[in-house]
């Protein structure tokens, strides 16, 4: 009997050990995937019990605030949807996006440093930290209403710091209603949740000529007065490059090639400088890199040459016709509105592209500063001299070229239009900065799916946003 009893006990020990192995599996080995399971709402539900930090505009006004209902906090948007694709939504059901997602550690109070540790030891919840963005609500509102019902994006930044002061993307959505509208939003073919400023990859068209011009001026292959002759067509490598609407410009200099956006001349310049110099110049403006914004990684795309959804390497081979078309911003070159704004900003800031940023400051619920933006150089695009040359040429675009619709009384605007063909319609561009002699704001405007040119539909919106930005008492 004793042996049988011992054996039953041994079976019992084995069963208990199996239990222990199983809890190790659940609580350690498998714990991460259980926590991340979409069916598991514990993390979000816990965060809903803590007052979430505010997301504020640069002026201190609340963009995303809090209200409490039956013990749970929920988001309110006192100014209506303001840059909702950037600020993001915060949903117990559908998760988070934008700043709400990338700065969730601060906003939810879980990344509160020493105070958080003390609170945890005392069993208290640390209220979330407040995030102040560089977005200036007054400028953002102008950008949003300027886009209106058109599909597109506007981004404005301070070229001297890299601070993004407006980032509008349409169509838009109301983050306050996300729990109800999410299923319809993700099915909408116009993608209202898409942050077109950072995720919209468009052929930059003639706005890209600023990049080509930079490379050619840097190499000394051209000067603003270098003479060219346009016959309406540039034959190369068995193909040809033509002008928009088949125009013929005849004899002209390089400045006029930029102001009137002459494709054949820029294609020739492309041939002159070659693939390596062109791609190298793109890299120096920030192409082929993900702009280091404080957004979730998947929300910011690098610009460059693409094959399908894949960014090609800088050494991907191109034939001479490819190079000629790339030099006029077509071929497989794709750029986000943010990247093209950074091109304008690079010219504006004497060839220096400042690191773009969205978060000015993070302050704890007790007022301590947890993080403070400090502007820094991102990449050097060109020399101050070349930048100055381009600055003057881009002023001519607005004063006497394709971009006259962007002109403002009393403020010298410098810019470049772009009209890229995509399918049966155009992507209209305008990139600009102002005031030309002391730039305070750089913008990029992109309108999708239009039958008009950048000079027609994008330039006037750039003017509105520039005017609004320069009217601000202080910019980031």
């Amino acid at each position, binding site marked *: 009997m004793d042996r*049988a009893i011992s054996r039953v006990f041994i079976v019992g020990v084995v*069963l208990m050990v199996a*239990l222990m192995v199983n*809890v190790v599996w659940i*609580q350690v080995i498998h714990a991460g995937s259980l*926590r991340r399971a979409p069916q598991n709402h514990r993390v979000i539900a816990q965060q809903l019990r803590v007052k979430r930090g505010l997301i504020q505009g640069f002026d201190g006004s609340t963009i995303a605030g809090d209200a409490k209902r039956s013990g749970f906090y929920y988001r309110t948007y006192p100014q209506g949807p303001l840059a909702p694709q950037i600020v993001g939504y915060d949903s117990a059901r559908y998760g988070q996006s934008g700043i709400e997602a990338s700065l969730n550690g601060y906003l939810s109070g879980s990344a509160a440093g020493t105070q958080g540790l003390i609170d945890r030891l005392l*069993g208290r919840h640390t209220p979330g930290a407040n995030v102040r963005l560089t977005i200036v609500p007054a400028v953002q509102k102008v950008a949003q209403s300027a886009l209106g019902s058109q599909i597109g994006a506007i981004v404005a930044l301070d070229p001297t710091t890299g601070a993004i002061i407006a980032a509008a993307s349409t169509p838009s959505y109301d983050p306050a209603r996300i729990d109800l509208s999410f299923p319809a939003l993700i099915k909408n073919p116009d993608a209202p949740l898409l942050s077109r400023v950072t995720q919209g990859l468009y052929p930059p068209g003639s706005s890209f000529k600023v990049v080509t011009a930079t490379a050619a001026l840097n190499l000394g292959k051209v000067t603003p007065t270098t003479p060219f002759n346009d016959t309406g067509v540039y034959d190369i490598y068995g193909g040809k490059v033509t002008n928009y609407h088949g125009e013929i410009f005849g004899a002209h200099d390089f400045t006029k090639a930029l102001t009137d956006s002459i494709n054949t001349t820029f294609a020739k310049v492309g041939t002159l400088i070659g693939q390596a110099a062109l791609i190298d110049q793109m890299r120096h403006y920030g192409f082929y890199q993900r702009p280091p914004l404080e957004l979730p990684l998947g929300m910011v795309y690098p610009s460059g040459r693409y094959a399908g959804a894949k960014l090609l390497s800088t050494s991907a081979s191109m034939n001479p016709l490819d190079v000629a078309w790339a030099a006029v911003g077509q071929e497989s070159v794709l750029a986000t509105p943010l990247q093209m704004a950074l091109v304008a900003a690079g010219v504006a800031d004497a060839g220096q592209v400042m690191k773009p940023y969205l978060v000015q400051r993070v302050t704890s619920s007790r007022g301590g500063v947890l993080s403070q933006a400090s502007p820094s150089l991102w990449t050097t695009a060109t020399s101050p001299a070349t930048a100055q040359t381009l600055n003057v040429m881009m002023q001519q675009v607005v004063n006497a070229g394709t971009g006259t619709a962007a002109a403002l009384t009393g403020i010298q605007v410098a810019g470049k239009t772009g009209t890229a063909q995509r399918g049966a319609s155009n992507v209209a561009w305008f990139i600009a900065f102002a005031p030309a002699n002391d730039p305070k704001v750089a913008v990029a405007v992109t309108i999708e799916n239009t039958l008009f040119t950048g000079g027609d539909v994008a330039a006037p919106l750039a003017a509105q946003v520039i005017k609004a930005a320069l009217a601000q008492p202080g910019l980031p």
Partner: protein
Amino acid sequence: MSRRNAEAWLLALVGVAATIAYVSVYAARFHEISRDSIVTGLIFAVLFLVIHLTERRYLPQADPYLVPLAALLSSIGLTEIYRIAPALALKQGEWLAIGVALFVATVLVVRDDRRLETYRYLIGAVGLVLLALTFVVGTNVNGARLWIRVAGFSIQPSEFAKLAVVVFLAGYLNQNKEMLSVPTSRLLGLHVPPLKYFGPLLVMWVLSLLMLVVMKDFGMSLLFLTTFIAMTYMATARIAYVVTGAALFVVGAGGAQMVSHVHERFAIWLDPWKTASGSGYQLLQSLFAMADGGVIGAGFGRGYLLYANHAPTVPDLQTDFIFSAVANELGLAGAIGLIVLYLLFAWRGFHIALHASDGFSKLLAAGLSTVFGLQSFIIIGGVTRLIPLTGITLPFVSYGGSSLTANLVLVALLLMVSHRSMVVEAGSVTERLRLAELV
């Protein structure tokens, strides 16, 4: 150090641990719970003092570890219940008082466990009546008929029937173990003992299935059946009983699959994700709560166990799923610790069985330890998805009066066996004389 002094020290340690746990819960949740509940803690201390003094008077040579283990488990349970639903903690305190009264009554009335052998059929019958009563006047909760209501109390008779069945089996098997060990007839090519001796055991098997089908009490059915198989094996040392029992169990389980209640339990076990917001919800929430605990957990009172409206995040958290609550707040350390406590309890129980002085006591102690260990395994395995979930209580920790009181009686019986075996081993003349008078 005498066994009782050792126990006193251990109980004092448990008292310190329980105080720390209570303070931790109170510090974390003082804005939600009342300080008055400290009364519960004091009641708790006094009650275990009563048990200790009863042992000093009547069972001085009993095992010194079982009562501290029971006290530690109950204090963990009481603390966790206090944290989840403060009002229930006081009720659990009341039940503990009743349980201690039953403990003392058992020691005073029974005195020597061998007297139970004489009344094995009566006790077995009482167990059957308790179960039958549940068939007849029971109330349905969560699809299972487990409770009867007496004078405002909800009683779960199967918790007491469990003890009665172990006592009956220990007596019956001890009387008939020789006959059951010797196969005399053949059935379907298998040697089987005579039906006369085998019959009552068959009744046990049918009873288990009836519990499953009629009362839909999957957990208790599984517990009864496995205890019955284990005890038959321990009495006869014949592995054939285990094989036959396992085969019968498979047949029973296969048949039980036809009962939708049981079928659903299996389906949830196989894939809870498929019904994540339906029938699989509870089990998944249990796993999520455990995963949140990590290695050391947030501490008593600091885990995320309640919604803002004070509803638990895991349904039935204070009863069947209390293990998940402890695993959430104390993490892996607490979960393993709790399993180790049950293992230690079972070890002491089997230790007592191995040292018991007679066949009945051996089988009784081994059977009680088996039923205790198995019950812990079945419910912990259920809430951690090692085995299909069957709703039974976690001994001493779950909220529930019947379970708590029945398990205190179980401890009393084990202590009686332990005390007597020590006395016999020590050969104390006076004790033997005293015992002789009683028998």
